[in-house]
């Protein structure tokens, strides 16, 4: 889309965009700068964006007061485990729904899709009670349980199976004597790897940011995730803002790094998951 540039309009446009950019980025800069300020400067008035003296003491305080290493590892475990499960279940079900015909196929697929319309918050109570029954409250399995399957993932993978895997290829593999599981593992899975990447990033980020379920299902700090730990400790540090900002920086850092490296994939993944499929 090209339009002839009217210079005043163009200037106004860039001013608006620069203004927007500043508003978008300012809270992050504020967080970063506060995390490096000594306690005496944190509450200085007027607020300063650049600390007079830079210090790492807030980061030390965070690690001393809260088991942030533990929280971090919990978040990594939760996100990695659930992402692997989502990838396996989505590619497997997507492949079966895309390439096989069997009784009740459409009914089952519609059922899976329909659950995607129901927000988690409307069934978290019975799910919690089920976890109580399983003895999974305050257990890793309970924490990870809701994130093992993703309706959207199955839908997305089914579409990709349709578009990227020709029937002839599967038939040829069958004639060559490859087992059904062998076809999935050696042929389908590698061909789906591109879209699996997009799904993996999406799933990872969504689980990393999870809050209400970890809040409900965990009772001891040993299982808290980064997000939950930060949410809980902000009350403890509510008079001491340096450490809490340091904690925020630490919880954002992994996501930022992933974003910077995989920016293209993420944007693609989000636009795909948002609408196209």
């Amino acid at each position, binding site marked *: 889309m*090209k*339009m002839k540039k009217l210079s005043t309009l163009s200037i106004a446009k*860039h001013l608006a*965009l620069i203004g927007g*950019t500043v508003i*978008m*980025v300012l*809270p*992050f800069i504020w967080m970063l700068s*506060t995390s490096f300020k000594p306690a005496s400067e944190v509450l200085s*008035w*007027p607020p300063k964006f650049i600390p007079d003296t830079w210090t790492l003491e807030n980061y030390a305080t965070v690690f001393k007061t809260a088991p942030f290493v533990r929280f971090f590892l919990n978040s990594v475990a939760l996100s990695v485990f659930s992402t692997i499960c989502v990838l396996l279940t989505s590619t497997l*079900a997507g492949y*079966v729904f895309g390439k*096989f015909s*069997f009784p009740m196929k459409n009914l089952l697929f519609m059922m899976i899709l329909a*659950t*995607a*319309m*129901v927000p988690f*918050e*409307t*069934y978290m*109570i*019975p*799910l919690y*009670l089920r976890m109580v029954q399983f003895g999974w409250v305050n257990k890793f399995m309970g924490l990870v349980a*809701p994130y093992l*399957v*993703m*309706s959207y993932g199955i839908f997305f993978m089914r579409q990709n199976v349709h578009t990227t895997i020709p029937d002839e290829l599967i038939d040829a593999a*069958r004639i060559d004597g490859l*087992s059904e*599981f062998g076809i999935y593992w050696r042929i389908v899975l590698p061909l789906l790897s591109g879209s699996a990447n997009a799904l993996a990033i999406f799933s990872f980020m*969504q689980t990393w*940011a*999870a*809050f*209400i*379920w970890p*809040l409900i299902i965990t009772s001891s700090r040993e299982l808290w995730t980064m*997000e939950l730990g*930060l*949410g809980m400790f*902000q009350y403890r540090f*509510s008079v001491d803002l340096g450490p809490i*900002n340091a*904690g*925020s920086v630490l*919880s*954002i850092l992994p*996501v*930022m790094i992933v*974003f910077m490296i995989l920016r293209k994939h*993420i*944007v693609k993944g*989000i636009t795909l*998951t*948002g*609408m196209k499929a």
Partner: protein
Amino acid sequence: MKQPGKLRQIDKTKRQRYLFAYGALIPIIAMYAILRIVPIAQNVLYSFFNSSIGNPMAEFVGFSNYKELFSDNLFAISIKNTTIFAVFVTFFGVVIALLVALMLAAPSKMSLLYETAFFLPVITPMVPVAVVWKWIYDPTYGLLNYILSWFGIEPIGWLIYPQTALLAIIIMSVWKIIGYNMIIFLVGIRDIPETYIEAAMIDGASRGQIFGKIILPLLRPIILLVTVITTINSYNVFTQVYIMTSGAQGAPGGAVRTLVFDIYENAFRYFKTGYAAAEAVMLLLIILVLTFLQFGLGGKEPKKRRHAAS
């Protein structure tokens, strides 16, 4: 001799295929049953019961949870707050995102920078962002009151009073979602064939005409989709409310009470399972109405919005 043998061969591969298909699907369907389908049904069921400890179906009470709900002041406040939140976040979240996307439509050297900036809040998890905004809104040391003081505005206790707290959370939430909607609009705008616009320009159409007569109609389905997704997600607002406005350790009586916050408190603080389930059913009904509204208006299949808690 040969034919039956070949048939058996076909039968065998067919059996193997069924075996694989069902073998793969059964565990997944079982997970769906346990983690999604049964809980969704149970939630509706539980809403007709009063619970006791360890038993969500201790006493059948018919619609009495719902009757109680409709005379409950806190529920009324929750519905009102959540609706105001959803309406404002959706309106500004869609309009601003559309404007930004239009400004970024023609790729330039700077557009990657702008896009990244607007996208930053989207990829950041809600908790750290809510923690920072909580401090930006601080009445004594907050950045916002400092900036407002340049214009001679007296300090405001943003998160202390219900009205300003709701406004504060709306602003912060709009800030967080603009980038997401913008990216979707951007894809839609960049998909519009250049020839349409060039043809219109040759015909002497003004910028306003090009926007109103070409871009807007072509974007209509996407705008509708984004509007519905944003509204639905807004109805589920919880994390930022919990972090920014509830007192120490999420103490009851926070300044902004939203639907999911109320469900959370009733279910997990007061253990009124049936009552909270009835509230959750109301939330589900609102979401379903919005979803079917989209079906009806756009004739487009609803796609995923969110699969689980965030």
